[in-house]
């Protein structure tokens, strides 16, 4: 530990990293603003200052927050459905070879088919209101399923043998032996699936146009050639995505630390 007055190399390194990152962001914002001035056509490109101003106007309205809440709620619901069903199916598939084989082509198709195809297809089956729920579900499911199944498969057979000798079976074995191995895989899957579900859910809203959603506002901005709003909503989507990712990541880390530190 450094003494009073001495520099802490760890803190210094972190500050330097953040400094470099901020400089990089500042560089690209400046380049964006210069490009906007050079193009000098609001329909094609608006600069970050104007986008920020428009974002401020939007954020002052209740509709902005209501739209974010609606999109977040529906996409979050689909995401949670995808995570839950992915974990449950992986647990069943790890026990039953037939289920694993049966699900393999389905999960492969879910990963390979373009989101746009799914959106149009699902729109035939469900209302536009529920479209983003289904699409975010479809995005999360195969990622969580594949990762959790891999985590279960990677569980050390020696540990399973040990659990067998001590008579630790069923849910206790899943909770204590498998969970330890699966958690890092689950964490990686949730981080990846969250971003994909969010983006695909918004894309579904742009096509399905449910009322009072981010997707609807994006579509309106495009129809009315309201480029500042288009950029402002896009910034809002990115900010929500980053905040959501950070919150979920920290929550998972905290849960993991709590789990590991249990007496």
């Amino acid at each position, binding site marked *: 530990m450094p003494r009073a007055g001495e520099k802490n190399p760890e803190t210094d390194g972190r500050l330097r990293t953040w400094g470099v990152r901020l400089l990089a962001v500042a560089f690209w914002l400046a380049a964006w603003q210069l490009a906007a001035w050079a193009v000098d056509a609001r329909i094609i490109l608006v600069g970050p200052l104007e986008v920020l101003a428009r974002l401020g106007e939007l954020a002052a309205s209740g509709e902005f927050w209501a739209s974010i809440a609606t999109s977040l709620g529906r996409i979050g619901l689909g995401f949670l459905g995808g995570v839950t069903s992915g974990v449950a199916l992986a647990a069943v598939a790890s026990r039953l070879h037939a289920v694993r084989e049966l699900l393999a082509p389905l999960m492969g198709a879910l990963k390979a088919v373009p989101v746009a195809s799914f959106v149009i297809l699902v729109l035939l089956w469900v209302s536009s209101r529920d479209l983003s729920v289904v699409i975010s579900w479809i995005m999360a499911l195969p990622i969580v399923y594949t990762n959790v199944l891999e985590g279960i498969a990677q569980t050390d057979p*020696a*540990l399973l043998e*040990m659990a067998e000798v*001590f*008579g630790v079976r069923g849910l206790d074995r899943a909770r*204590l032996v498998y969970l330890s191995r699966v958690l890092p895989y689950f964490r990686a899957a949730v981080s990846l699936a969250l971003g994909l579900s969010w983006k695909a859910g918004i894309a579904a809203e742009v096509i399905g146009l449910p009322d009072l959603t981010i997707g609807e506002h994006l579509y309106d901005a495009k129809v009315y050639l309201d480029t500042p709003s288009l950029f402002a909503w896009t910034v809002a989507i990115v900010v929500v995505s980053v905040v959501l990712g950070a919150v979920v990541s920290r929550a998972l880390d905290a849960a993991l630390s709590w789990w590991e530190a*249990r*007496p």
Partner: protein
Amino acid sequence: MSGGAFELRSVEKSYGPLRVLSGASARFEPGRAHVITGPSGAGKTTVLRLLAGLERTDAGEVSRPADARLGMTFQEDRLLDNLTATANVRLPHARLRGADLEAFLARERAALAAVGLPVDSRPVRELSGGQRRRVAILRCVLADADALLFDEPLKGMDEKTVEQLMDYVAPLLAGKTVFWVTHDPREKDLLPNSLLWTVRDGRIFPA
């Protein structure tokens, strides 16, 4: 544990072309410690795994008391790396809740301290090899088991640690059927009222 003893009857066991046991027979008196020794590769671990039901015989029979609850240490630690020492020791008691859990936790903490292990919230992956070994031994001796099987539990431990560990462990083994595999026949002296067995030439003999 219901009546009956652990017993090998004319057991044959090979791994591919390697014949490990050929006609091994032994009856292990219940409620006593059985120290099983022999040269490297003689088949001591195979005998232990057969008794634990982790291996099948090629021929012959292994009988165990019906419903015998087992505890075991392996040649490796086989700990859950990202759990604490207490959570690992408590693994065989996964169902404990409330006051029972608190009482067992207190017992675990006392056990850890008695064998010179830190009582803290670190996961066991941060412990040294020797410390992990002691956690695995405590998991075995504190399991609610009728028979305890140890595969070279003291391997690589210094004399002082062995003394400290056995001061705590030996009294807990009293009255239980214990199988203690070791290279060192002198470990018999660590276990009161124990019998010495030797695995040699594919068979097991009382020494």
